[in-house]
């Protein structure tokens, strides 16, 4: 076994000293019927070279695809410095900083992270992370119910344009406590229709939740949402994409009470879907209802600046069944990556990345909607991603694109049947003009050959009757 340092002689000496004959005697309090001499049957062990060979082969069996998918996970450039530093053993292999004197590096970094997230979102405070965007949203809902002392509705109204997986996870986590999630459907422009909620469910909510930009790339009018929340006596919960906030006015400036988001775009690899980073920020007045760890600045016994985990009376290891959440382990290492990302990019870099993503996506949408049978789902402003409607089912089109090495977007037609054959597309700053041309050409080959054939037929019959020149090369 590769990582046990004991020599056989040493193990024997240790046993001897305790008056034991063999290792098995260490289990003398375990009932015989439970103790196994034979280990469970798994693969035989490999050395590092052997496991490397297999891992490389497996990684090689994954087909790299040119990525035009977003929907909560984005391929951004990850500066080389980020994971060089984050992989240092002092960040990679340390524990939660409960012993503050032995963890000032992690604690100060977390304090800087909290400051950066608060600044980016325009909120007063941010916590030291939750698992991912979906659990951050669920915790934001639970937190809002605790914070809203005026309401006993135990209901949250959520825009259907908010990420479907976030809503699904929130349902799983809210279900246990009997808190209801009421969905406001999409109107024709892709905005949430709250009139429907009033007419069918009535008012009375602890919080109203919306994402900006939303899952469909739409930009809700947060001023109107703030007014709606005020009218309802509800808290306003806003979901965000942190990269978008390099360019967009932050939700804090619109009066959001709680902001949650997916931090993956901040220097974290897509990695098949995790580990990601749950962002949570709020107004100062709600701190004591916040779940998860918080780093704070204080002074040490000599009066010098020091950092600690603070307000721990909210947490499970102190408050047990009355804690704000059961969360213990969070996404600490992802916080290191996100902090380095925000520091390296700065306000100007974040603005450029956000602007480039928006510009590339606009180019992509223009190129794809020039193809017959492809149109935008909504005639409204979009940011960073957009929904296209196809004239045929999306899944076979994506499969055909994948054959050509292209991940053409996220098929959202089963999540949003009301949109028909809907495809969510995105181009980050990583996509070049050539990439976009390549995607458009491939999609045209897949969805338009019939059109071309039809045009060709028309052209041929026209030639027969009118003897005009062949223009089939320019038709599509």
């Amino acid at each position: 076994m590769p990582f046990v340092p004991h020599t056989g002689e040493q193990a024997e000496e240790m046993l001897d000293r305790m008056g034991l004959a063999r290792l098995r005697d260490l289990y003398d309090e375990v009932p015989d019927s439970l103790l196994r001499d034979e280990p469970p049957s798994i693969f035989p062990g490999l050395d590092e070279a052997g496991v490397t060979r297999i891992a490389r082969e497996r990684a090689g069996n994954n087909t790299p695809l040119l990525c035009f998918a977003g929907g909560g996970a984005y391929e951004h450039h990850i500066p080389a410095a980020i994971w060089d530093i984050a992989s240092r053993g002092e960040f990679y292999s340390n524990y939660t900083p409960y012993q503050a004197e032995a963890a000032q590096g992690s604690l100060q970094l977390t304090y800087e992270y909290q400051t950066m997230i608060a600044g980016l979102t325009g909120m007063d405070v941010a916590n030291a992370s939750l698992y991912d965007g979906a659990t951050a949203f669920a915790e934001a809902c639970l937190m809002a119910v605790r914070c809203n002392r005026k309401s006993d509705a135990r209901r949250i109204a959520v825009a259907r344009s908010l990420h479907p997986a976030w809503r699904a996870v929130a349902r799983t986590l809210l279900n246990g406590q009997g808190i209801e999630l009421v969905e406001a459907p999409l109107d024709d422009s892709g905005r949430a229709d709250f009139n429907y909620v009033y007419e069918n469910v009535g008012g009375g909510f602890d919080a109203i939740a919306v994402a900006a930009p939303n899952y469909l790339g739409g930009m809700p009018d947060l001023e109107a949402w703030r007014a709606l929340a005020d009218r309802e006596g509800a808290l306003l919960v806003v979901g965000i994409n942190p990269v978008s906030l390099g360019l967009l006015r932050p939700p804090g400036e619109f009066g959001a009470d709680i902001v949650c988001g997916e931090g993956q775009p901040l220097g974290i690899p897509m990695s098949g879907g995790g580990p990601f980073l749950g962002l949570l920020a709020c107004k100062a007045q709600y701190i004591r209802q916040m779940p998860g760890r918080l780093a704070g600045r204080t002074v040490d016994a000599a009066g010098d600046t020091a950092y600690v985990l603070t307000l721990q009376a909210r947490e499970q290891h102190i408050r047990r069944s009355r804690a704000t959440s059961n969360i213990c382990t969070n996404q600490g290492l992802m916080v290191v990556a996100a902090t380095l990302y925000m520091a390296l990019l700065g306000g100007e870099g974040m603005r450029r990345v956000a602007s480039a993503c928006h510009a590339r996506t606009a180019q992509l949408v223009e190129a794809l909607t020039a193809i017959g049978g492809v149109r935008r789902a909504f005639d409204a402003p979009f940011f960073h991603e957009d929904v296209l409607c196809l004239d045929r089912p999306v899944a076979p089109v994506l499969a055909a694109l994948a054959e050509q090495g292209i991940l053409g977007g996220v098929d959202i037609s089963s999540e949003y049947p009301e949109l028909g054959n809907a495809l969510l597309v995105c181009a980050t700053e990583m996509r070049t003009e050539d990439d976009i041309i390549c995607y458009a050409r491939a999609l045209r080959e897949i969805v338009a050959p019939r059109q071309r054939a039809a045009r060709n037929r028309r052209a041929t019959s026209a030639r027969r009757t009118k003897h005009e020149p062949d223009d089939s090369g320019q038709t599509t």
Partner: protein
Amino acid sequence: MTRRLIFDVSRPGRRARAQAPAAESAAPAGLPAKLIRDRKAPLPAVSELDVVRHYTRLSQLNFSIDTNSYPLGSCTMKYNPRACHRLASLPGFLDVHPAAPDASVQGLLQCLHELQDMLAAVTGMQAITLAPMAGAQGEFAGVAMFKAYHHARGDHARDEIIVPDAAHGTNPATAAMCGLKVREIATGKDGDIELDALDAALGPRTAGIMLTNPSTLGVFERHILEISRRVHAAGGLLYYDGANLNALLGRVLPGDMGFDAVHLNLHKTFSTPHGGGGPGAGAVGVASSLQPFLPVPYVEKAEGEYRWRSDSPDSIGKLAANGGNIGVLLRAWVYLRMLGREGLQRVADHAVLNANYLAFRLAEEGFDLAYPERRAGHEFVISLKRLRDETGVTAADFAKAMLDEGFHAPTVYFPLLVPECLLIEPTETESPEALDALIEAMVRIRDAALSDPEAVRSAPHRMPVRRPDEVLAARKPDLAHAPALRRD
């Protein structure tokens, strides 16, 4: 010592020029002006070297497994093999979008499927979900499945979870998140659960019991088969908090003990990194009776192809935006492939050997074991009550003095049952020489406490900071650097 924040290094106009794309020539098209920021996000304006130097220096202020022994009870701070990190970071694994079609990620899914199988084998459970992103989420999944199981049988009266008083705080917190009431039962003087207390708690309202075995007291629950029989007879289910599986790996299977659901902290027993607090992974195994309720998605192999499955009608639902902390799962896969069948028992054997040796030697040196009559598991508890009564030096003081000696402190004041306690877990990857050094350091501190208690009570003296004022931190929370947020 005053350390600078990254914001103090910032100088307007400076930036890491290699790290951002060229500015767009035109203003963002199609977006109303009121949606655009009127000033840049308040982030540091620094060079790449500023960032690298600042955070490298911060890292050097941390203790870590790579730099120090870390006998932190209940946390299993064993060596995190570099191969796990290197191989999980292959571009073929990292550059996978979660929406990528299954056909394009067969290599990844094959690894995850093998991990499911290996974890099923080492727990003795029927099926595994890899979705939970930490132990606490695994607990949530387990208890939510208990609830779903009872409800599916039309039994809606079971609204109580039994939790021993020595349990991890996540256990009662999880039960509360699932909307169940917590019924706490006492631990006996010998460290085992009091069966009378269990009987008094069991009844038609019992949804189940959550147990750690060995318990957080570091001892094996000798009545486990009887507990299992009684809980099942009362119609309840058993949940295994796998935080302490390192004590039993390959030797005792939770399924054999009668557990219906098990979570594994892959960042403990399976050596994935703690990362300063995460990310972890909390895979859950279940008996066949709970399989229909497993969270989605999970990986299935059918007709030679691997695929994500999400279509279970009775599932408790989704726990993560995607399939879980996949990068962490890959590290556990690498670890288990290296460990192999023959390595499983060697992990537990040497973890338990180290803990027992350490406990034995410390007792020889005059330290008080909390359970001197009991065999230790992979960790054990000592009480410093006698030392405190004699010298005024508390467990917290002792822990701080250990930092000065270059050892991370053990867990202090947990479990709550033992006064002035240290919970010590050496793990199997520490050498006998490292254990001897730890013993010598603890003896030195104890001797110092007897000769010059004030020096120990004011420890640490050689760390980057002295003891922080935690009361001030909580009374006047300073959670963000205000000058960096000022809007002017």
